[in-house]
Every structure is written in structure tokens, then in C-alpha cells.
């Protein structure tokens, strides 16, 4: 497992642990020490450290949650306009016995997957697929929509620009704004820029403890504001991108806990936490009338922002 820079103190202990195991020495409480050290390290985690945790290649991604927490998943393909974007996965599935439409981004864990899903950067056809599946769930099947978000943003290339990237993003956002069914979103890892927005227009927005949600990546922000990447750590702090901060700002509705050491170390615990949170949220929205849910969703976006009159 790749150790992140801020996890250095843990890495040394891990090495010692491995050495003792190999030589057959007694652990003498080293395992407990590691546990404590992990807690200590994660107690002082900074916003930019969280960005790195959120991007850890072994962190569970939306497709993993779909596989583990949903049954009867039928993947539906295509934007009906020229492409099927592999970075967006969506289809009908049962969650806890409830029929839902689940839509997620997909980054991939290894080089092969990463290449295939172009690192989870969403193409115009991906946004159009989101819009299409949202309409199908809302207008035809009448089933709730669950979105799972882990994306470094919309793809930016000559191809995606001339294929209508901005136009496609519009269609995804407006489809979810208008959905006549409950929408629950979970940011599981990276939640960057317009791509993240286009999947988080929802009635309930949840975030994993070590996920982040930002108008753009700290790297891009540093690049725009300072013309270099040196300030990405400082900017990460300025941007207010962590679950704790965003809950305080009323941008998100709930934090799904992760143990110290994060989801890449403890995927099963986090899966369970996501499952429980989703169960509760789905029960919650199921009890509300759709008119009231939609009114609240409307108000949430109508009121978004801070300004002075």
C-alpha cells in the first residue's frame, strides 16, 4: 500500500513491524503503537492531506460501492448522441430491497483501469449519460437516484470542447435539478469542479470524512492565482474543501465517518458506514412527499451563496 507523505511516521513503524515479522521477533506492542500513531497522524491531518487521501489509488471508488452494496445492477450505456463514456457508470439496481437508479464516476485503481476510464475525468457523453439516466429514473421508472462522486473534474481537451462539454454539463445539472424523484449524493473521494457539481445536485448531500469538494483542485487554484503550484497546500485551506468545513457551511447534509487511517486502510468499515448512512437517508427521503422534497431542493439552490444587500 502506497504511504502518503503525511503518513511518514506510520511508514517507519510499518517497516519495523515487517522486519520483526520476517525475523520472527516478538511484536512487543508495536501493533498497538501503530494504531496510536495512525490516530495521532490523522488527528493533525490538513486539508491538502485529505486531498491526497481522497486520491489514494486503493480508496474504494463508486464502482466498488455499486458492486458491494447494490444487487441486480443492470448497467445502462450511452448518451444517445454518439458515445458511451466509460468514466460514468450507471444503471438500475436494488439497494436494500429498494429499486434505485445508481450513477457514479469511475477512476480506476490501476494503470489499465485508469487509462480505460481516463482517470474519472468526465466527457460530454458522460454528462449526457447522467442526464439521460436521471430522466429515465425521474420520468419513466419513478425510482430514486443515488449518485456516487469521485472525479478530478470534467475532461478538458480539443475533443471534449468541440463535443460540447459545457452544453453537456448544463444538461446533467438541469436534469437533476428537475428530477421528480429523491436524489441522494455521496462524495466518496475527489469532488472537483463542475463535474462534481453535476452529480451533487440533490436532496441529501453526504460526504465521506476524508473526501473533499472544491470549486477546483488546489493545484489548479494555485496555478491560476500564483501562476505556479507552490501554494497548493495553503490554497487547499483557503478554499474550505473538507467535509467538516462544508457541513458547517451547510453545503453538505451529513458526514459519513471513516476511521483514522481512512478508507484505503479500512474499506470494510467504510463500506458498512456508507451502507448504514444510505439506508437511513433513503428511508428519510422515502417518507417525504416528492413535492416537499423538490421545494426544499429548489430553496437550497435559490439561497446558495453569501453576499451583502
Amino acid at each position, binding site marked *: 500500500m502506497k504511504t502518503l507523505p503525511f503518513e511518514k511516521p506510520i511508514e517507519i513503524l510499518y517497516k519495523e513491524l515487517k522486519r520483526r515479522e520476517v525475523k520472527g521477533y516478538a511484536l512487543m506492542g508495536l501493533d498497538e503503537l501503530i494504531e496510536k500513531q495512525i490516530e495521532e497522524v490523522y488527528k493533525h491531518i490538513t486539508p491538502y492531506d485529505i486531498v491526497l487521501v481522497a486520491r489514494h489509488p486503493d480508496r474504494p471508488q463508486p464502482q466498488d460501492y455499486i458492486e458491494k452494496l447494490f444487487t441486480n445492477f443492470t448497467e445502462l450505456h450511452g448518451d444517445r448522441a454518439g458515445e458511451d463514456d466509460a468514466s460514468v457508470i450507471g444503471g438500475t439496481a436494488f439497494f436494500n430491497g429498494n429499486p434505485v437508479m445508481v450513477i457514479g464516476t469511475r477512476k480506476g485503481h490501476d494503470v489499465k483501469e485508469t487509462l480505460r476510464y481516463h482517470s474519472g*475525468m468526465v466527457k460530454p457523453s458522460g454528462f449526457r449519460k447522467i442526464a439521460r439516466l436521471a430522466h429515465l429514473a425521474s420520468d419513466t421508472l419513478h425510482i430514486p437516484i443515488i449518485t456516487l462522486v469521485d472525479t*478530478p*473534474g*470534467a*475532461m*478538458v*481537451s*480539443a*475533443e*471534449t*470542447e*468541440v*463535443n*460540447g*462539454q*459545457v*452544453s453537456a*454539463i*448544463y444538461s446533467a*445539472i*438541469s436534469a437533476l*435539478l*428537475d428530477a421528480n424523484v429523491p436524489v441522494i449524493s455521496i462524495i466518496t473521494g475527489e469532488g472537483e*469542479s*463542475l463535474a*462534481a*457539481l453535476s452529480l451533487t*445536485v440533490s436532496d441529501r448531500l453526504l460526504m465521506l470524512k476524508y473526501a473533499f*469538494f*472544491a*470549486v*477546483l*483542485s488546489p*493545484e*489548479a*487554484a494555485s*496555478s*491560476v*492565482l*500564483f*501562476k505556479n*503550484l507552490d*501554494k497548493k497546500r495553503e*490554497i487547499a485551506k*483557503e*478554499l*474550505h*474543501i473538507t467535509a467538516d468545513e*462544508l457541513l458547517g*457551511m451547510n*453545503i453538505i447534509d451529513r458526514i459519513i465517518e471513516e476511521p483514522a487511517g481512512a478508507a484505503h486502510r479500512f474499506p470494510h468499515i467504510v463500506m458498512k458506514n456508507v451502507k448504514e448512512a444510505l439506508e437511513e437517508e433513503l428511508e428519510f427521503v422515502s417518507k417525504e412527499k416528492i413535492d416537499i422534497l423538490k421545494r426544499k431542493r*429548489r430553496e437550497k*439552490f*435559490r439561497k*446558495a*451563496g*453569501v*453576499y*451583502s*444587500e
Partner: protein
Amino acid sequence: MGLFNKKKVVVPVIPAESQDVRVRCTSCGRLIDYDALKKNLKVCPHCGYHFRMSAAERIALLTDKGSFKEIGSPISSVDSLHFRDTVSYAERLKKLRDTIGLPNAVLTGTGKIDGVLTSIGVFAYEFLSGTLGSATGEKLTELFEFAGKNDLPAIVVFSSAGERIQEGIYSLMQVAKVIQAIEDYKKNGGFFVSVITNPVLGGPAVIAMGGDVIVAEAGSYVGVSGPRVSEQVMKRALPKEAQKVELLQNKGFVDIVVTRFQLKETLGNILKFYRRWSL
């Protein structure tokens, strides 16, 4: 890819009351008498390059003389995150209010275009590159609400570098907020004409795509992000041509590309078709 290898062009904002008597054209490099440039609607008389206009100039260009009236109360951007980059965002805002006299990056009102009464919003690029902050989002939302209540068509002239980074996630939220306002307006019989001027990037570009008709000023660029963000995200430069409105018209995303000289007439001509036929 030869098409995509043109050099990047930096576009200066020429202050309305410049002290310089001559300006060098960003595109052809020739010196132009400033008064002549202004008389030519800030279009280079040699090469046709469209210099940027301020929000006030844009309103003067498009609306019939004396017909423009601002709507709503002044709404100001605030430093909600206590954001600091090279300077603090609070200081930036103070300075902008003192120098250009706008409280946010959009000017909204009603006016007549070739005699047709319309609601109109104009992005002020001179206000932090026309970036989309909370105050701007609120003003745009109010514009569409006003247009809906008063049965008016809505025109928005876009020019923006994208999201207002200094307002963090609040800036991103404005994209959904304004789209919601547009969709409500359109569902209730509205008619939204987007006008793309150079450049329109990020969230504002997304919003602009909501136009029932999309008109663009010749040589403008519109797309998901600027060169710096693109390079950061993709680890390679974005060929700028891919965001050029002339190409995007061929790709089906822009209805009409016109020079600045034709812009007002074109808009007037479209507005004349709104609800003119009695069912």
C-alpha cells in the same frame, strides 16, 4: 493539428477613459488611434480584432439610447471565506468598489433593443475578470425571475474567466442556482438569448449554453476552462482553437456568429419573433 497551434493572445481591457492616444492591436500589432478605435466600436480597423468592452460600453452598444434602466437593489460580493491569495479577497473587493464603482460582476436591467423591450444582463469583465461569485449569481437569478414576472425576453451578454475562486464552493453553487432560474423561466414561457463575447469560461460558459438561441461575437472563445486550469487538469495544453465560436458553430453549439457591428441588429431581429404570433 496544425489548426490548433496558434499563439496565445493576451487581451487587455482598455479603460474607457484612457490617457494614451494610441493603442497597439493585440492581434495585428499595429498602432491604432484610441479615439478612432472607440468610434469603430473597439474593433481594430486594420484586422477586425474585437477589443474587450466594459459592461457600460456593452449596454450603450446594444440598447436604444436612454432606454436602459437597472433593476433590483445593489448586491455586493463579500469575503465569506476570509480568502487570501497574493492579497486578501476583502482588499480586492474594496479596491474594485473604489475604482470601477461596481458592487459585483454583472449589470442587470431592462432596455430596448431596436425598439423591443427586453431584460438584459451584462457581465463586467473589469470586475475580477467577470468571475461568478455569489452576488453575481444572485443578480442573474433575480434577472430571470424579473423577466419571468414581467413577460420579457432575457438577454445575457457573457464575458467571464470562470468561477470566483475566492468564494470557493459558493461560487460553484451559483452555476446550479442560475441554471435553476433559467429553467424555471423557460418552463414558464421565457425566451433566453445568450450572447458570447470573448472569453466565456467555466460555470458561466455552462450557463450560457442554456440559451434558446446562442449568439456569439466573432473571434470569441467559450469553453470549460482556461489555459491554466486545462494544463493543470490534463497535464497538457488545450488547443485554443477548440474553444473558438466559429468552430463551435460548425459543431452545432452556437447559432449565429456575428461581428460587433451586426450584434445589435441580430439581437433585435431575433427578439422580434418572440410571441409575435397570436395563437
